[in-house]
């Protein structure tokens, strides 16, 4: 019960703080719209040469923008959470009140994701509809929601893992950005995952085992084609479920251990 109350209080605070910085929200929305314009142009100009797509490259790219709009910003916000709380002196106080890093980070991810989801659904989704990208059928809406939720859990796990590195090594520079870019590339954000085999044979198979890769593929099937191929759907869902579970469990265990180590070496509060 305590965990949920703390999570709610911290999430509400984070939402309140986010809404105090309206200019930042405006810039984030502007950035997403620029992404849509850039990828639309890219999809219009470039033709795929080595991989056959079931849909246009433009639609391929724009659904990628829509998908990552849910996760990119909240990942950045979550990874920056602990240094920010430490800079405000709240980290020590919260820890001494049994608020764990997992709770803090989950609350930050939740608050940021709520904003990202609202922006994606209210701004990007209508744009995709106007551009005639979407063929979503209502019967697959629940599946789409499950996919997004599992991908959110996976990205939360990745955020917790990266933050666990930050707990011990204070200046991690672009380490967190590297993770995000790697996940985006391997998920097929910029080009079809199958194209990776042109560089390293078999790499696409490994990439598709990542929940975000499987999730994006599923979302593309659901949004652009209207339905996923049944046999591929279950494979992708299995990847999504297993990968997310492994990452979340590992992340929580590692983060809790790092918290104990940081308390021992005395670096818990310092950034």
């Amino acid at each position, binding site marked *: 019960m305590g965990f949920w109350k703390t999570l709610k209080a911290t999430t509400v605070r984070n939402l309140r703080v986010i809404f105090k910085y309206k200019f930042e929200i405006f810039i984030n929305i502007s950035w997403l719209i620029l992404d849509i314009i850039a990828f639309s142009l890219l999809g219009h100009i470039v033709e795929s040469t080595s991989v056959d797509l079931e849909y246009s490259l433009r639609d391929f790219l724009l659904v990628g923008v829509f998908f990552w709009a849910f996760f990119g910003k909240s990942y950045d916000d979550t990874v920056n959470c602990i240094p920010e709380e430490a800079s405000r002196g709240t980290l*020590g*106080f919260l820890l001494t009140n049994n608020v764990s890093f997992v709770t803090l980070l989950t609350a930050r991810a939740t608050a940021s994701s709520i904003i990202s989801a609202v922006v994606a659904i209210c701004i990007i989704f209508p744009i995709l509809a106007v551009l005639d990208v979407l063929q979503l059928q209502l019967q697959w809406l629940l599946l789409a929601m499950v996919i997004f939720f599992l991908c959110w859990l996976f990205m939360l796990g990745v955020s917790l893992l990266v933050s666990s590195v930050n707990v011990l090594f204070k200046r991690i520079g672009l380490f967190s950005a590297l993770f995000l870019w790697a996940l985006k590339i391997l998920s097929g954000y910029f080009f079809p995952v199958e194209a990776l085999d042109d560089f390293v044979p078999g790499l696409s198979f490994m990439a598709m085992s990542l929940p975000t890769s499987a999730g994006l593929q599923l979302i593309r099937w659901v949004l652009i084609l209207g339905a996923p191929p049944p046999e591929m759907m279950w494979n992708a869902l299995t990847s999504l479920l297993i990968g997310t579970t492994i990452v979340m469990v590992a992340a929580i265990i590692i983060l809790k251990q790092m918290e104990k180590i940081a308390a021992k070496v*005395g670096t818990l509060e310092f950034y």
Partner: protein
Amino acid sequence: MEDVVIVENVVKEFPIGAFLRKRLRILNGISFNLPDGDNLAIVGPNASGKTTLLKMLASIYLPDSGSIEIYGYDLQKQITQVRNMISFVSPSLTFQAKLTLKETIDFFAGVQDVGIDDIALNFLEEVNLTHMMDKRLESFSEGQKAMVRLVVGLMKQPRLLLLDEITATLDLTRKEAVINTINELDRRYKFTIILVDHDPMVVDRICDKVLLLKRGGRVLKYSTVDELLSKIPYKYDIKVTPKKTLDDGFLKNFGFPYKKMGNIIRFFTHNHSEVNELNAKLLEKEDYILEFSISGVSLEDVYYYWMQKETSETEKY
């Protein structure tokens, strides 16, 4: 009387240097017991480990060896239970500037799982902050923020309140208000306080016992405030700021023990008549003296006296 805090032979080292191969020992075998009903001040020079010890009691750091028990719970094995009973307040708690006081209080009440109707609102009323509930914290003065920190720290009615230099950035008026508020709340809610503060006035007014640390993280003295003050072989000191450097020959003519501290000279006297005698002599030499002040012994004197004893200087009083 039950001991609230039992610290036994606590050692704390931090890794330093390239690849963190070296270790810097901050606390070196600290032991003390704090009985219920007593408030404790941890004092000492910089780098004596005061804040480290306080943060260890707050469970932010864990000891490398030794043990800490708070209200019977082992800090390392029963950390959740310990954290339910303590509250740690530090001036580094700066809050989200864009949130209002109400939003900030709501947040901290939520994470501590307490309502804001009782202690928090009453306290805010006492310190005259209820009219600022809808104001952003960025508009608060340092004194007002110090009060908010106390509200946040006291909200869950902790059994042990840990205060880390909470009056450090405050002027005299604000400091007085904070001290009075803490004393009043202590009387009302009967919690135990352990604080770190450089200001002897704060320690004098709030604490019953003093843990005096020395550089290297060892205990120099652990005693009641009154006992420590009574051990000082003088009762008054007169701080003199000369207009120019005065040599020992000149100073010895006053006929009282003294010590030079930078460009300040401190004379030590035992009683009122000696104070009056020295006062008269200083006034005769007003051409050499910029200003002087008279005060009774304080914890500052306690610290210097015990440090001198420890380093075996040969001042005789």
